[in-house]
């Protein structure tokens, strides 16, 4: 077997770009689940909204789907985030005052509805044929786009990490640990839940928009729960729920495992390829089980922010000792 070096390099860029996009979505889930304990199993829905918004806002005018506004990349990202956030807000209004299991049911329901509407309502996104011709910003060169995605990932990481370390993030953790306690500490837990849910969903929409510009094409089948929801959960749990570095690391590791097994199954005789790809899903499931049993805190466990005594009092403590 001869190795085509340039082919390998471009495959590497492809892999890294998708891993970085998943990193953004994994950070988003960490805001909702890792930091706040909100059980969102409808990531795919917000991801799809982001992707379609980007497509509709940035592609040239077309009779086959909504929009075609021909606006710049940046506007697409902002619209993607705004619409995902708005949908999250509406879902939140209905579910965040209820017990947490209702959020899980509602989110998976909403994400499936979004996918089915996109599939059947041709006027929105051209149905199963999807929207093509979504351009990359600056240049068609995949290396340039990888740089753009890495930049967005870095910015998202810094913002989310700052939020986590702030008093805002502290209230989220408190309410994750003990809802009644947070309430008794005077916090409006509904407000904080809503903020975390909306912020996370906006970032999921951002991830979807990055994905649309990378592949250049969106269609409903890209937003099956297995790829867009389940895989992200495995990434966050494997990387370390509650830890933003872990969320990003998990995205890269799991995406490499996932793609690596695709290379393997492609080597199988044609008759077995279908079974092989089903086995990949099974493998990821088994991997998740092993992680949960052997290392439930993930590769990078949640770090405790260092909150040492204020300088004055620690000096006193030493005096006493």
């Amino acid at each position, binding site marked *: 077997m001869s190795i085509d070096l340039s082919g390998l390099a471009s495959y590497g860029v492809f892999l890294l770009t998708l891993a970085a996009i998943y990193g953004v979505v994994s950070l988003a889930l960490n805001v909702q689940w890792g930091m706040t304990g909100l059980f969102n199993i409808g990531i795919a829905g917000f991801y799809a909204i982001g992707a379609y918004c980007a497509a509709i806002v940035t592609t040239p005018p077309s009779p086959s789907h909504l929009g075609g506004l021909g606006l710049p990349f940046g506007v697409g990202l902002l619209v993607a985030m705004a619409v995902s956030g708005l949908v999250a807000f509406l879902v939140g209004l209905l579910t965040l005052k209820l017990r947490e299991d209702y959020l899980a049911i509602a989110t998976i329901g909403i994400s499936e509805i979004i996918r089915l509407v996109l599939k059947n309502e041709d006027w929105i996104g051209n149905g199963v044929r999807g929207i093509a011709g979504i351009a990359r910003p600056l240049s068609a060169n995949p290396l340039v786009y990888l740089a753009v995605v890495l930049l967005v990932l870095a910015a998202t990481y810094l*913002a989310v990490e*700052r*939020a986590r370390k*702030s*008093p*805002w*993030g*502290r*209230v989220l*953790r*408190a309410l994750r*640990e*003990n809802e*009644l*306690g*947070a*309430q*008794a*500490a*005077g*916090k*409006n*837990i509904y407000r904080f839940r809503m*903020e975390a849910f909306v*912020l996370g969903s906006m970032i999921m929409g951002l991830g979807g928009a990055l994905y649309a510009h990378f592949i250049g094409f969106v269609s409903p089948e890209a937003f099956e729960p297995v790829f867009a929801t389940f895989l992200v959960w495995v990434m966050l749990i494997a990387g370390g729920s509650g830890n933003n570095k872990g969320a990003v690391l998990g995205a890269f590791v799991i995406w490499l495992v996932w793609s690596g097994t695709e290379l393997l199954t492609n080597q199988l005789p044609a008759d077995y390829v279908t079974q092989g790809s089903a086995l990949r899903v099974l493998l990821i499931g088994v991997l998740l089980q092993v992680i949960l049993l052997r290392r439930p805190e993930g590769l990078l466990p*949640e770090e*405790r*922010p260092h*909150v*040492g*005594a*204020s300088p*004055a*009092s620690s000096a006193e*403590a030493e005096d006493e000792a």
Partner: protein
Amino acid sequence: MVSIQGLSKAFGGLQAVNQCSFDIPAGGITGLIGPNGAGKTTLFSMVAGAVRPDSGKILLDGEDVTGLPTHKLFRKGLVRTFQIPHEFSRMTVRENLMVVPPGQSGENLISALLAPGRVRAQEQAVRQKVDDVLDFLQITHVANELAGNLSGGQKKLLELGRTMMTEARMVLLDEPGAGVNRTLLGKLADAILRLNHERGYTFCIIEHDMDLIARLCQPVVVMAHGRVIAEGSMDDIRRNEEVREAYLGGHAARKLDEDAKP
């Protein structure tokens, strides 16, 4: 300070609290006692805004606060603790307390992201306040311990500490002494008295430990089967026939009297 007027609450067919009325006088330490299942904790939950009453009114300084959510009551200075401590287990003791102060600018996501300087300055002030509270409760040595690792008694102190992190005026303590060893219990009682004297906290305390009630509380309110059956000083309560009936059953109470005779 707090006036409870004809408060009722039923859970399904169980009338947990039935037409309860009494006042919690400002500046005092009111005891709330009664056998298990008398409806004391449900009453607390209603006053603290966690459970909505079916009927009746709660007045805080003359203002009708019935049905207000917990966080709004908190802002008015009404704070409660729990019988079973509700600490944030995977956060340090220090963080547990730092969560509490209301109106921190860093709790606003936008300023948390965009005004880190102001947030940092405020964090410094909050941290100073935490140090004072830890010092007051004499639990500075566990400041950086995860709250989930504390002993039962230390968790109770932490619950009390939480009420000290805000401008509380009215504090509801649900069985602060339950599961606390004698030494720590003394410390707890001292802390309550000091908060009452020095900071003017008004307390209402549910407690089964009669020594603690006798030491701290005046007046004492007795509940049984969802109703208030007696109110007065601890001595009045001790002599009250209906109270003894409720706690011991009439026969046992009479037997106790006979045994006590020389």
